[in-house]
């Protein structure tokens, strides 16, 4: 079977596990919403909240990403499933792409809810003019996050102290996404007079990031999970 076929099987398996366990809906989404409410407590000013809402959406996404990635690989390591896949001769490229795809789908749902929460909680307004930019930002940033999440999740999987290792490894790497996606979202929402045209250069950065880690991950994933 080619890598793409494997990827689809792995992604479908991950999403099925998710659908049956409902961890994303029952635990991660409430966690992400809680983080949003905590931000509101900490910042304690309606105007400030509206101003920094795009950054908070992405910050909450990063924290939730950690939780989702931990979960995604906990499923694999619990019964030595990752090792079993490798012993069965399944190509690592397929596993990487499949897990990234499943992560992408879960993050997309999460971000949609977080953005909706921003509109309700932080009085963010989405204008028709910025919708294309907003959707492109989400697509590009989420793809990059899914690749990085899978790559470092695979590395930390099965390691001692992986809960603490993963944030240490992953957060510095996703910083460019946080910056780029925040700025592009600000442009799409017109925060502080920004216009959608200000956002497009950041899309370039986000796409470059996703492409580099997509290619890097495809090449490196096999060596990282090799036990």
């Amino acid at each position, binding site marked *: 079977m080619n890598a793409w076929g494997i990827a689809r099987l792995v992604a479908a398996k991950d999403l099925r596990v998710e659908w049956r366990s409902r961890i994303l809906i029952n635990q991660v989404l409430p966690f992400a919403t809680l983080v949003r409410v905590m931000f509101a407590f900490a910042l304690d000013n309606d105007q400030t909240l509206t101003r920094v809402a795009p950054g908070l959406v992405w910050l909450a996404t990063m924290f939730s990403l950690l939780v989702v990635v931990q979960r995604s690989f906990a499923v694999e390591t619990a019964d030595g499933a990752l090792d079993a896949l490798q012993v069965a001769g399944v190509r690592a490229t397929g596993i990487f792409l499949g897990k990234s795809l499943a992560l992408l789908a879960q993050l997309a749902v999460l971000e949609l809810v977080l953005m909706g929460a921003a509109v309700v909680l932080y009085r963010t307004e989405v204008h028709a003019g910025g919708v294309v930019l907003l959707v492109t930002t989400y697509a590009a940033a989420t793809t990059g996050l899914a690749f990085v999440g899978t790559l470092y999740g695979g590395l930390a999987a099965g390691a001692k102290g992986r809960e603490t*290792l993963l944030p240490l490894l992953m957060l510095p790497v996703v910083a*460019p996404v946080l*910056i780029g996606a925040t700025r592009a979202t600000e442009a799409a929402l017109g925060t502080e007079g920004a216009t959608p045209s200000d956002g497009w250069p950041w899309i370039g950065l986000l796409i470059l990031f996703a492409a580099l880690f997509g290619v*890097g991950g495809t090449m490196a994933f096999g060596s990282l999970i090799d036990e």
Partner: protein
Amino acid sequence: MNLTSSPSPTSGARAKHPTSTRFTRALGIAALVGIGWLVLFGLFLSPNDRVQKTGVRILYIHVPSAWLAYLAFGVTGLSSAAYLWKRTRNLQWDRLAGASAEVGVLFMGITLVSGSLWGRISWGQFWTWDARLTTTAFLFVTYIGYLAVRDLGGTHQQRAKRSAVMALLAMLEVPLVHFSVKWWRPLHQNETVEKGKLNGLMLFSLFIGLISFTLLYVWLVIHRQRVLALNDQVDDRGLDLALAARREES
């Protein structure tokens, strides 16, 4: 410089100094003398700067350690690539990468602390969100993560492969962080750690700093990678020795 031979831990004469050789002793003495000179020139003989006053003396430590931190991470990247390349695959490269990263983290720490002290004197604040500073801080954290990955366990080959991939990913990450921060705060991009005009004696002090810190780096890396080699030997032979000892007992 002989990086490949690690002295046997059991050879009698060397047992006292298991990682030192005549070369490293000479190197260590040279580094020590250089640092003595640096103290003399940096603290006493070189004059105050017109603008920064005595604060300029921090630069004699700050600039060399920053240069060495970047050099160290460069060495880590290159030796990781050398390990991953099949023709040059040798655990020696992995240990060199690890040793260099450890020393790099040390120098990066010195860079950040001395830099923020200097910033407090010159700019009135310990930290600014300028691209160079932020990238440096990220580099520091990234290589701490790299060292954590080295400790994950497994066979030497697993460790080497995993950490070599990590080192290359870190080299991919650093330019991305640098450029994104540069775009993020475009107003600050010119606010870099410029030295201003340095007179001859100041330049000479800086030069001594560079030379003596470079010697110190080489000395530390040679020792560290030999200690790492001994660690690997202990891992490899530990079980055999334990078994042999057990047999003798019975």
